Structures are given as structure tokens and as C-alpha cells.
């Protein structure tokens, strides 16, 4: 017997590709791979199904089947439910939302002028559209640029429109004003801060670092108290400086510090070769930043940026602490009335759904954008 292995081999032809085995494709494969992949997975799947069966039907029952939309008070709700489903049965009392809907949306905005914030909201969607979707014609951006001025006059009045005081603005309207302004303003400020923090110029860098670290190190509530109380001490006596404006500035500064750090992460993720290639082609700092660096850094940062946006939008509810009547700020006054005393879940659920709609839309848009901008494979 020879101890030498026979290493010579020549393929006799090309093996044609064939379909994968049946167990690797189709719904059966999906079930096995995702729901029943091993003992632990199977137990978790069964447990989840049990939890859904136990929780969802009672919730649907409480919210929809036993829910009451028309009643003058909480006790009114209870009477309607007792009459329909028998004594001791509970159901949701949506009548409170029905009665206070306008207040939760507009605050104490004069009801005959509701068309103005509604128009401002519709125009806002039109102004955001060309910014969010690059397939729309670019001239629409001129409208977007002019929108803030139009929105200001629509909401606060002036230029022949009846003036509405800031104190009358509340509800979701207030959240959207603070949230959208904060979001739109914090992104550019955040970009400038992030670039400044990377700067080779000592003072620019120091100013940006100090600003970012100071703002990030302080709770938003503190800044809001500064806006509502302390700022008056520093301003010359007699200056009235709108509270909503002060709050918007504070929320914007707060979000831009976070934004700067998110974008700095994106800048750091960029390969050094990108900076060098841009330099080597003769692009100056601003051109290379605008054309090469930021498009890539912002793309990487999208999840973080949208995360900050969502956080900012939800943080607007903190303004209730300094007495502004955003949806959360309105809940206690409503619950303090004789008619609705004792109501709890329905109000908070409604406010939660309001915020969820906005935040979920942002999250979806972020996913759309990430997919659209994906060019790296």
C-alpha cells in the first residue's frame, strides 16, 4: 500500500445550480425558523400567544364595546354602561374626550379662529413635503422658507388678523409649535456645533465643547425654569419676552446639544480617506463639508437624529411643569372639574395616542430615508 495520498483531481464539468431543499423555503420554514426554533423559542411563542389571548379581548371590550362617547360627566358614563351592560360592568368613558376635544387640541384658542391653526397645520405639511421628499419640485422649497413667517401671523395674529395672546395657546397646538420649531432649528445648530467641536481652531472648539457639555449636563426642567422665571431677572425691566418663545429657545438649545453629539458620531464614523480625497481634489473646507462630509455623516446619523427629534417632541410635555397648558398640562384641570373628577385612563390614553401618531410617523420616515439613501451595497 502506498502512503502517498492521491492529490490529483480534475473536475469533469460545471455542476448546474439547483433549488434548495423544500425544508429551507416557504411558510413551514418561516414558522420553524422564527417561532419554533428550539425549546425556548417554542415556549416563548406559546406564552406570547396566551398573553395576547388573555389581554387583547378585554381591552377591545373595554375600549370599543363598552366605551361610551356621549355623556355629560363620569357618573353619566357609568349610568349609560350600567343600563346597557348591567350593574358593576366597567367601560371606557370617552365622553370626556368628546367634550374636551377642542381644548386638548387648541387650548384656550378662540373657537371662532380655529381655522387659523388648522390652516397653519395644513400649510406646515405642504412646507415640510419638499424638505422630506426630494422627488418633489425644488421651487417648493421657497414656500418652505417663507412658511415660518406665515405660520407666526396665522397663529398669533397681526397684519389685520385678530391678535391671539400666547396664554390662550395650549393643547396639542402648543406641543406642535414647540416641537416642530425645536426640531427644525436644532438640526442646523447641532450641525454647526458638531463641526465646531471638530474644528482645529482652539476658541471655536472650546466654545462648542463648553456649550454642549453644559447643556447636556443640565436637566431640561432646569432650563425651562430658567426660561420661565430667571430670565426675567436678567432682562431689562419692562421687556416682555414671550414665554412660548423663551421655552422654544430653551428646548431648541437643549436638543441641539444632543444633536451635535449624534452628528459628531456620524462625522467620526467617516473614513479619514473621504476627507483626504476631498482635499486632494482641491475642494475647500466648506465645499468638502457640504458635498462630501455632511451628506455621509448625516446619513449615518439618521437613526440618532430622529431619536433626538422624537425625544424632543415628547419632552415638550415638560412645559406643563412651568404652567403652560400642553395636553398633559390640561389633564389635571380637566380631572379637577366636578363632572370628570376621578377619570384617569381615558385622558392619558388619548394623549398617548396623539403623541404616538407623531412619533411613529417620524420613525417610519426615518426608515424610509435610510432605505432610500442606502448606496453602500
Amino acid at each position, binding site marked *: 500500500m502506498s502512503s502517498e495520498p492521491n492529490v490529483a483531481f480534475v473536475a469533469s464539468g460545471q455542476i448546474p445550480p439547483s433549488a434548495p431543499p423544500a425544508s429551507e423555503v416557504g411558510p413551514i420554514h418561516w414558522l420553524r425558523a422564527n417561532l419554533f426554533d428550539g425549546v425556548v423559542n417554542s415556549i416563548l411563542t406559546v406564552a406570547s400567544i396566551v398573553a395576547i389571548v388573555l389581554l387583547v379581548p378585554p381591552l377591545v371590550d373595554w375600549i370599543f364595546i363598552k366605551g361610551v362617547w356621549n355623556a355629560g360627566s363620569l357618573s353619566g358614563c357609568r349610568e349609560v354602561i350600567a343600563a346597557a351592560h348591567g350593574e358593576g360592568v366597567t367601560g371606557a368613558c370617552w365622553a370626556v374626550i368628546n367634550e374636551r376635544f377642542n381644548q386638548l387640541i387648541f387650548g384656550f384658542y378662540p373657537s371662532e379662529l380655529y381655522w387659523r391653526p388648522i390652516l397653519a397645520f395644513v400649510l406646515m405639511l405642504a412646507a415640510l413635503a419638499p424638505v422630506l421628499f426630494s422627488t418633489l419640485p425644488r421651487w417648493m422649497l421657497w414656500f418652505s422658507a417663507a412658511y415660518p413667517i406665515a405660520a407666526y401671523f396665522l397663529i398669533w395674529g397681526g397684519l389685520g388678523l385678530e391678535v391671539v395672546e400666547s396664554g390662550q395657546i395650549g393643547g396639542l397646538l402648543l406641543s406642535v409649535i414647540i416641537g416642530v420649531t425645536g426640531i427644525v432649528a436644532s438640526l442646523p445648530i447641532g450641525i454647526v456645533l458638531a463641526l465646531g467641536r471638530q474644528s482645529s481652531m482652539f476658541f471655536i472648539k472650546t466654545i462648542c465643547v463648553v456649550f454642549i457639555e453644559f447643556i447636556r449636563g443640565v436637566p431640561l426642567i432646569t432650563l425651562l425654569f430658567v426660561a420661565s422665571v430667571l430670565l426675567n431677572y436678567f432682562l431689562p425691566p419692562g421687556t416682555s419676552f414671550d414665554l412660548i418663545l423663551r421655552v422654544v429657545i430653551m428646548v431648541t438649545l437643549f436638543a441641539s446639544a444632543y444633536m451635535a453629539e449624534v452628528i459628531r458620531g456620524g462625522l467620526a464614523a467617516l473614513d479619514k480617506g473621504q476627507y483626504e*480625497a476631498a482635499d486632494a*481634489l482641491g475642494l475647500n473646507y466648506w465645499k468638502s463639508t457640504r458635498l462630501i462630509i455632511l451628506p*455621509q455623516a448625516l446619513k449615518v446619523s439618521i437613526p440618532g437624529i430622529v431619536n433626538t427629534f422624537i425625544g424632543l417632541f415628547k419632552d415638550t410635555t415638560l412645559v406643563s411643569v412651568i404652567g403652560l397648558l400642553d395636553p398633559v398640562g390640561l389633564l389635571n384641570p380637566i380631572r379637577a372639574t366636578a363632572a370628570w373628577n376621578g377619570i384617569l385612563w381615558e385622558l392619558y390614553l388619548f394623549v398617548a395616542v396623539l403623541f404616538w401618531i407623531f412619533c411613529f410617523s417620524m420613525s417610519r420616515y426615518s426608515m424610509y430615508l435610510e432605505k432610500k439613501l442606502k448606496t453602500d451595497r
Partner: protein
Amino acid sequence: MSDSTEELHVDQSKMHITDEIAIQITDMNKWYGEFHVLRDINLTVHRGERIVVCGPSGSGKSTLIRCINRLEEHQKGEIVVEGIELNSDLKNIDKIRAEVGMLFQSFNLFPHLTVLENCTLAPIWVRKTPKNEAEATAMQTLERVKIPEQAHKYPAQLSGGQQQRVAIARCLCMNPRIMLFDEPTSALDPEMIKEVLDVMVDLAEGGMTMLVVTHEMGFARRVANRVMFMDEGQIVEQNEPEEFFHNPQNERTKLFLSQILAH
């Protein structure tokens, strides 16, 4: 070294060296902190020269060519490129960079732009060329590097060799007078090296002034008019390729050549 240079078609008669000086480096020194990377570099490059720079890793060869377009800053001495002195004047730096093309080992294409946009970006934004004119030039250049059909793809969809050829096209669209190559084939699979070297030969035959940091000794033999050996931050030896490879003088050169040409 590599077999891929064996079949390169090179026509030396098309390459002309003129008296015009493209790059003049005098007593240049550079430090990274305390570390003395480049020591008393003196180098005159005439228009049309093809200089291959070789040497062990860490010898400063990449740093040297990166100083020529100021990707690295030198601390002492003088570098004059196309009659413009490199100093801290940003205008001068951008002017020189527009005239000097640079190729990187890792291509450094812009991944968020298509191949065509990679090629038109600098002409449009630096040279202020109208967009359609820049696109026409870019298409011609892509044809020259033999990948016009990839114009609308993104860099990540191309092979390494194709990406490096796009990078060459991106440089050429700026009509550079000098091109610097920082190990242009080191990141490529063997079967892709030749397609890039072919384009480089084409450039050399077109009269381009080239400084090439490379380990492709076949390319050095056939294309370069001068081979330069660097070690520990200094130019140790330079000569015509024939002499350099067959009759090295310095011990360090001999050792280096014996190591890389051993197999």
C-alpha cells in the same frame, strides 16, 4: 514580484521628459511630534518624469508624496509645485491640489455619489465647469479607463480594480499636470492589478508627470525613468531602473532588493 506586469505593453518612445520643472523640493524635513519622518529631502521632478518610490514600510515614502499636495504638512525646507510654493496660504494649497491628482490605496471614492458624479464633482465645484460639459468630459474619461458602462452605478457595486480606475478617471477629469500614486494596487486582488497598471501605462505614454509609491517592480522596470529607494526617512539611492535593479550601490538598497526580488 507580481506576474501581472509581465504582459504590460509599454511604449517608452511616447514618453518625453522636458526641461520644465514640475516639482522642486529643497531640504525638506518633517516630524510627527518627536519622530523625524522625512530628513533633508531634495528632489527635482521634471515634466514627464515617471518616478517610482520604493522602500520598506515606515520609510516615509507615502508621507513624502502626501507632502507634495499638503495632505501632510512639512516643517522645514521648501516645496514648490508648478511654480507655487506650498505654505500655510490656503489659496495656494487649493490651487496646487487642483493641479495635482492623487490616487489612494483604498480608492476613497465618494460612496454616496454615482461613478459619474464622483467624476464631475470637482470640475463643477472647483473649476466651475458647466454641468453638461463636465459630464461629457467625465464620460470620455471613463471610456479612457474602459468603464463607461458603469457610469450610473455606485462605487460599492464595482470591483476593486474598477473602483481604482474610477478614482483615476476622477483625477483625470480635473486635467492634472502631476499625478501622485500612493500604493494604487496594494489593496487589489492579483487579477485586478493589471487593469489598473494598464491605465497607468496609458497615462505615462500620454506624458503625465507621475510619482508612484508601489511594490510593483515590473512596473518600475518598464515604465519609470527613475527609481528611488527610501529608508528611515531619507532618500538612500536613486537611479535609472536598469542600473537600480542590476547594480545597486547602497547596502540597504541591496538588502531591500534581495528581499523583494527573492521569489
